[in-house]
């Protein structure tokens, strides 16, 4: 295209060159510039490795924390199913009354399982476990009530649903006190929420840092190539053409940084796995830590590439414009 001289043919848009060929030429020029940028990184290994390293580690931290939160959620999800409601029956409830209550409750759709612990049995267990032993034998009457342990179905095991079920159970006339064994779970959830917010915050801060680091690295690249950019502008290079190698540099930084983060996350998980196994064994839990799934991995790489591109875009927009032939 010539703005000044009609009919003057130009480059790949030349009428003599076919459409397919000009599209092909466009891609070839892109690939050439992409490889050129990669080659440039290769020629300055020390500087490139440092930038890529900073980028990789900045992405490793939020990724690792993300995996921790995900795994904690998985564990707590396992515990949540076991949440139990303890019903302490009124002292004056007869054995028949207790049996009636059990029969009634067993028809409720919310209830998965019922365990009845008669007062006598509870006393024996207490005697056995508390170590008070004979002292309890001196009691005139059994101070313990009959207890019914209610296990809600999965659907009603979430904190809110279990709370509703508890309120309903408390309405039963035989029931004196109902306790939901879930307060600690609520606290855990609240804690997890805080941790999740923290992960998001740390992630955002580090991502901004990554954008700034890449932006600054590209700015240095641009000022190193000042003379070349001047000459290119003199012979008619568009801004887009001048920007492209720097954008590809940002792309490579992002991709390589993302790969480093991936390797780092795998190493960290491998290193932590044995201690986590030992910890889980204390709770008689069989637990394996899950790493990044395929989707999350590509998400991480994609994010890394995106950060690289954004950093370099901000930089080229600002700094290539400043270089004008005078």
């Amino acid at each position, binding site marked *: 295209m010539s703005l000044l001289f009609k009919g003057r043919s130009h480059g790949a848009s030349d009428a003599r060159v076919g459409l397919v060929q000009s599209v092909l030429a466009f891609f070839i*020029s892109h690939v050439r510039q992409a490889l050129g940028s990669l080659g440039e990184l290769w020629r300055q290994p020390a500087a490139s490795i440092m930038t890529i390293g900073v980028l990789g580690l900045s992405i490793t931290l939020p990724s690792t924390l993300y995996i921790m939160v995900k795994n904690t959620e998985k564990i707590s999800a396992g515990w949540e199913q076991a949440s139990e409601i303890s019903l302490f029956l009124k002292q004056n409830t007869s054995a028949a009354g207790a049996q009636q209550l059990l029969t009634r409750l067993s028809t409720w759709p919310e209830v998965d399982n019922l365990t009845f612990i008669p007062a006598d049995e509870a006393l024996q267990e207490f005697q056995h476990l508390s170590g008070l032993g004979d002292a309890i034998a001196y009691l005139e009457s059994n101070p313990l009530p009959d207890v019914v342990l209610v296990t809600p179905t999965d659907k009603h095991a979430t904190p809110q649903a279990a709370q509703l079920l508890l309120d309903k159970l408390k309405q039963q006339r035989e029931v004196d006190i109902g306790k939901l064994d879930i307060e600690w779970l609520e606290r855990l959830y609240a804690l997890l929420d805080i941790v999740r917010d923290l992960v998001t915050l740390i992630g955002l801060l580090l991502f901004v840092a990554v954008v700034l680091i890449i932006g600054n690295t590209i700015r240095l690249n641009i000022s190193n190539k000042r003379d070349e950019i001047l000459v290119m502008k003199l012979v008619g290079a568009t801004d887009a053409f001048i920007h492209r190698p720097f954008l590809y540099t940002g792309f490579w930084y992002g991709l390589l940084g993302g790969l480093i983060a991936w390797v780092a996350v795998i190493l960290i998980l491998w290193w932590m796995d044995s201690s986590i196994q030992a910890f889980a064994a204390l709770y008689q839990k069989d637990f394996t830590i899950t790493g990044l799934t395929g989707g999350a991995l590509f998400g991480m790489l994609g994010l890394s590439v995106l950060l690289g591109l954004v950093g370099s875009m901000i930089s080229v927009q600002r700094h290539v414009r400043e270089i004008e032939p005078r």
Partner: protein
Amino acid sequence: MIKFEQVSKTYPGGQRALSKVNFHIQPGEMAFLTGHSGAGKSTLLKLISIMERPTVGRVLINGHDLNKISRRQIAYIRRDIGMIFQSHQLLMDKTVFDNVALPLVIEGYTHKETTKRVHAALEMVGLRDKARNLPIMLSGGEQQRVGIARAVVNKPPLLLADEPTGNLDPKLSMEIIRLFEDFNQAGVSVFIATHDLGLIARMKYRTLTLRQGQMITDGLSEADGEAWS
């Protein structure tokens, strides 16, 4: 080809580089622009290649008003103008071939076409065998010819040269001017700024003269030809 209409240029800070300059260079013409250092020669060339914009007045190339050219379009304008500089403006870490190929790479020519044209351009300036050299290994005159090869490689209709013979001895200078004559023969309009009066005196080309930002002769009226010296 190039037309200035009442063009004035005042730099930020109040320095007046050109005032009310008028002239018109025809297509296919070869003309010289002379004047002392600081007379406004470089500024005038920069207005043509849109490195600067006029404060007042219009600059037209082939009838197109450059004031209407947006920032984004400047790159395309420069593809129509071959520019040659006193300081060569070569990339010292690239080979002669790569330097000359740059305008073609920018315009997206195929590799085959690029090679063909670069070799043709180097042939014209007599540097065919120096394609693989780095500019630093060449003499001043050869470097200038590389710059010329780069300016003509995409066959622009207009050539601008700013002191192209500035650092060269008279014999080399003459060779460079002969090159420009060859391009002019092939139909290219050539506009050369120089303060090398001895060089111009030996030729019968139109000479425009600037003094303190004013055009004291546009080379068409004979009477005031020697007025500024």
